[in-house]
């Protein structure tokens, strides 16, 4: 949050540096005084001065300073929670991954994705948050503050990215066994790039072109993967796990846990429990190494 890429994070970062400076000065003054009265000059001083100190240091000074801090930061609050200017991103916390829907038009139909958040610069996007099973919290440190995702409730926030780049977000409410492994990639793009990406994301999955990918798709269909996962444009329509339509175009695998590579996909398919304790994804270690590789190649190819 000290290298901000969003409007809110930048304001809070500036606020932090101001408060830090003040805090250091105050700390030095208070402890310098303590050192002075105990070590440097332990002799008696006037009682009147001591009472002035209690009143001035304990009441007047903090009242004035804190009032100023409160006025500034509380007036910042509505701004940081302002309603978004168009794009709505609905994020639902699952154990332990993120269900993501983009609603460019609130009355239209959503573009479904998972485990990665893409946002355009130059506008404030609305983030709607929910959760299944347990409480999570949605946080992208470089962009702004976090908001909890609570089962049975809808919460909301908004973000205004200013810098293009790849960042990281993470769950910040303890949500069980693999809380530590519930992160996500964040990609901030220019409005044009974002629009292009969103159009691509809305399309169906690409069909496998080479033999190995085709073999991978057969294994995918034959192993029942579609019961939990959806790959749009195929028979796989499961809703339990993350949508895989454009899996290969994401920057990370398994909710920010692994890089998006064929070998990471193989490791993940073979033994998800080792990489993410408690994950609901079953192990496919009964597949032959060659089949696993084919499956991984197919999945990596879903760009």
């Amino acid at each position: 949050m000290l290298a901000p890429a969003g409007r809110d994070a930048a304001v809070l970062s500036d606020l932090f540096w101001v408060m830090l400076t003040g805090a250091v000065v105050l700390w030095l003054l208070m402890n310098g005084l303590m050192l002075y009265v105990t070590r440097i000059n332990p002799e008696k001083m006037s009682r009147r001065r001591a009472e002035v100190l209690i009143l001035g240091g304990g009441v007047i000074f903090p009242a004035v300073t804190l009032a100023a801090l409160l006025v500034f930061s509380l007036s910042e609050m509505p701004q940081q929670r302002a309603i978004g200017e168009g794009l709505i991103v609905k994020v639902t916390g699952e154990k332990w991954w993120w269900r993501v829907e983009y609603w460019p038009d609130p009355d239209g139909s959503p573009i479904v994705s998972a485990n990665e958040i893409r946002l355009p610069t130059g506008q404030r996007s609305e983030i709607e948050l929910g959760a299944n099973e347990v409480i999570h919290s949605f946080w992208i440190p470089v962009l702004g503050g976090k908001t909890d995702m609570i089962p049975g409730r809808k919460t909301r926030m908004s973000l205004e990215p200013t810098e293009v780049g790849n960042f990281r977000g993470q769950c910040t409410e303890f949500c069980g066994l693999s809380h530590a492994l519930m992160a996500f990639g964040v990609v901030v793009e220019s409005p044009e790039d974002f629009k292009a990406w969103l159009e691509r994301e809305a399309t169906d999955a690409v069909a496998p072109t080479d033999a190995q990918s085709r073999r991978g798709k057969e294994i995918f269909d034959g192993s029942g993967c579609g019961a939990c996962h959806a790959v749009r444009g195929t028979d796989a329509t499961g809703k339990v796990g993350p949508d895989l339509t454009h899996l290969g175009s994401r920057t990370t695998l398994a909710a920010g846990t692994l890089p998006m590579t064929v070998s990471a996909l193989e490791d993940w398919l073979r033994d998800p429990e080792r990489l993410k304790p408690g994950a609901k994804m079953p192990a496919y270690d009964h597949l032959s190494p060659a089949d696993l590789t084919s499956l991984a190649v197919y999945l990596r190819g879903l760009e």
Partner: protein
Amino acid sequence: MNRNPTKFWRRWPDPIPHPKAEGVFPPTQAMLSEPVDPATAEAQAARLRKVWKLPTGAHYWTAVNNDQVGKWYTMTAFGFMLMAGLLALAIRVQLAVPDNDVLSADRFNQFFTMHGSAMMFLFAVPLFEAFSILLLPGLLGARDMPFPRLSAYGYWSFLIGGCFVLGSILFDVAPSSGWFMYPPLATEGEGIGPDIWLLGLSFIEVASIAAAVELIVGTIKCRPPGMRINLMPLYAWYVLVVGVMILFAFPPLIAGDFLFELQRSLDWPFFDPERGGDPLLWQHLFWIFGHPEVYIIFLPSIAIASMVVPTAARQPMVGYSWVVLSAVGTGFLSFGLWVHHMFTTGLPQLSLGFFSAASEAVVIPTGVQLFAFVATLMVGRVTMSLPILWIAGAFAVFTVGGLTGVMVALAPFDWQVHDTYFIVAHLHYTLFGGMVFPIIGGVYYFYPFFTKKMLSQRLGRWSFWTTFIGFNVAFMPMHIAGLMGMPRRIFTYPEASGWGLVNLISTFGAFIVAAGILIFAWDLIRPKSRQPLTERNPWRAGTLEWSHSVPDESWGVRSIPYITSRYPLWDQPDIVERMDSGRYYLADAREGLRETIITSAVDAIPQSVARVTGPAVCTLVAAFFTGGAFILPVFHLYWAAGVSGALAVAAVIWWLWTSTAQVPETPMKDVGLGLRLPTYVSGPDAPGWWAIFITMTGDATAFASLVFAMFYYWTANPDFPPQDAIHTNLFWIAAGAIFFILSWAATFGARLLNRRTLVKYARALLVAGPIAALCGAACLALAFWVSGMDPATHAYPALVAAIIVWTLAHVVLGGIMQLYCLAGSLKGKLTPQYDADLWNTTLFWHFLLATCIIAALVVGPLPRLL
């Protein structure tokens, strides 16, 4: 008593008057300077020594003296702290490098959950109570706490509960949902971990409340004659403030635990959004407890500093009344801050703004207290000693935590750093600075009072500098980790995060802290038998505890002094000599009973002599079975738990019957200095009445939390109670309420009649009372049962059922108390003159009636109107 029953209303006798103190008070200078005959003094001392003798051999563990119980309590809490510290080291090892696998995810989650839970519930709060039990009678020149057996009961409960909760880690079944236990994670949690947390810690909370009740009564009723409330040592003020805070802060958590455990064992959906519940209700109940908890931990260390600093400065505290006002102010404000733990839950901005401002406001009373210390040191001539070194270290560390606290209290800034390592750093700076450093300073300061030996100056300095440097090395980098985006409670992190270096430094620092604490622990327990005893008042302090003789006597003070100053050892010449010679009050134990003086709450005018209880095994038995009642349900052994609970009640009755409100051999006794005091008082003059009053205030707070839950659902959920909900049967509710009123009237009437010597009528009412209570209970249960409500279907019937269960349990207790009074009356333990039990039962019933009527309204007509 030959009265005509048909005409008694015409011959309504006057009540027997309550006995009052007689004779001279305050004592004159002439009386005080009159010498005591040495032979008499020697005989008195011998009798006192015999009465206050500690049990020996295996019976030692039946001791109830505050100095023994306090010592066990302190050492046990310290032991739990070392274990929780070990867990912290394991956590730090796991986080030392990225992608580490020393601990599995599950074990890591168990460890951080238990680290937090143990530090809070098994160390920070109990240590304050332990320390205060050890210290308070000394500060107040009292012989013991007002209810020594209650202290012992609290201690044994704490030991059993603590071992149970912490021991679960050895079986790999410890709670792993975090010390805050948020549902649905914790309600859905598999295994017995959450049950261990809920039931084990509820048990300890009950023990904590018991200790708080005793400390409050001790502070307001056991002060020495003349020590008006504005002459109390500041430590006693803090005991009072913190005791009251415990009394109001713990019950909401107990109510929450109650609902939570009902959901886990019976599937009543209080926190399940699918069935009308709300996970945020728990967060509110938890933090209404959790935030005051922070100040419950922090204020005692200010209390210690307020004893050490004036001594170091050889100067009375500057701004005594400001400090008292600030302490009370902090206590009040701390109940209005809880939402700052929930800034990210999406609450309306208006409430965020309010709680943000309230959180900042608490800086002011805290600042006043801190600056009062600096001011006192300024005015005095400071002689540097080890305790003040620890206090100065505490000041340095705490101010860092305070300043980051100012930052995180701002809601928008908190949105960024909430649940990151910035908060971990912040809270450890406040808790180490606001608790660990001052407590250790307090141990160095008070150790000669507790043991009449000195701790080592050299080890103390080593320990201080090691801990101080290690602490900053461990926790300063955590601020940076948090600002870099590292969330709390993660068992691992990827290398690419860049958090590796700061974490490695933190781990390194954690081990330095551990070394520092170990040096202190060694200093504490190293054998000191060959070390000479200290002098009597080694720091030249001004407060009463330093009047205790060397070598120690278990009677506390030889005679209870008359106090006219905040620093009597500085301002009242000859006070120690006069106490020693038995010139003051209660210098003798002629009847062979343990006694201390009870004074009025504000002006400390002597009111009575309390006969306090001695060694007993019944408290141990009671604690053991109470433990069974809480622990067995974890393993779903509900019948065994019920039996254990019944045995616990029996043991408590045995304890009360054999030791409290005993008919004295004489109604008045001479306590010295021309003063005669009653040996038995009932009603508001009696400490037992205050104990019931205070306990029931806490109990009412828990009940209010359940009622709050009803209104909370109503405000948070647009369809509550649901449109088509079944309600309780109003007829039976009304019938129940009428029976409860009758039972209350019977109890109240019994007290009035008994005091007017109409014993037969009183007994008749005490028979009618429990019958009416039983009928009322049956009606209330019927009101639910005939309606056909099913608690498992929705939060509404579940909450109605929970309120009814809560009320019924209290009614049963009320019935037992009525029967106890009846038995007392029949056996001659309760007479028209000696009727304390009946006063206490009536007081209980006042609260109970309020509970019953409110419960009837809340489960009956109210939901129909919502």
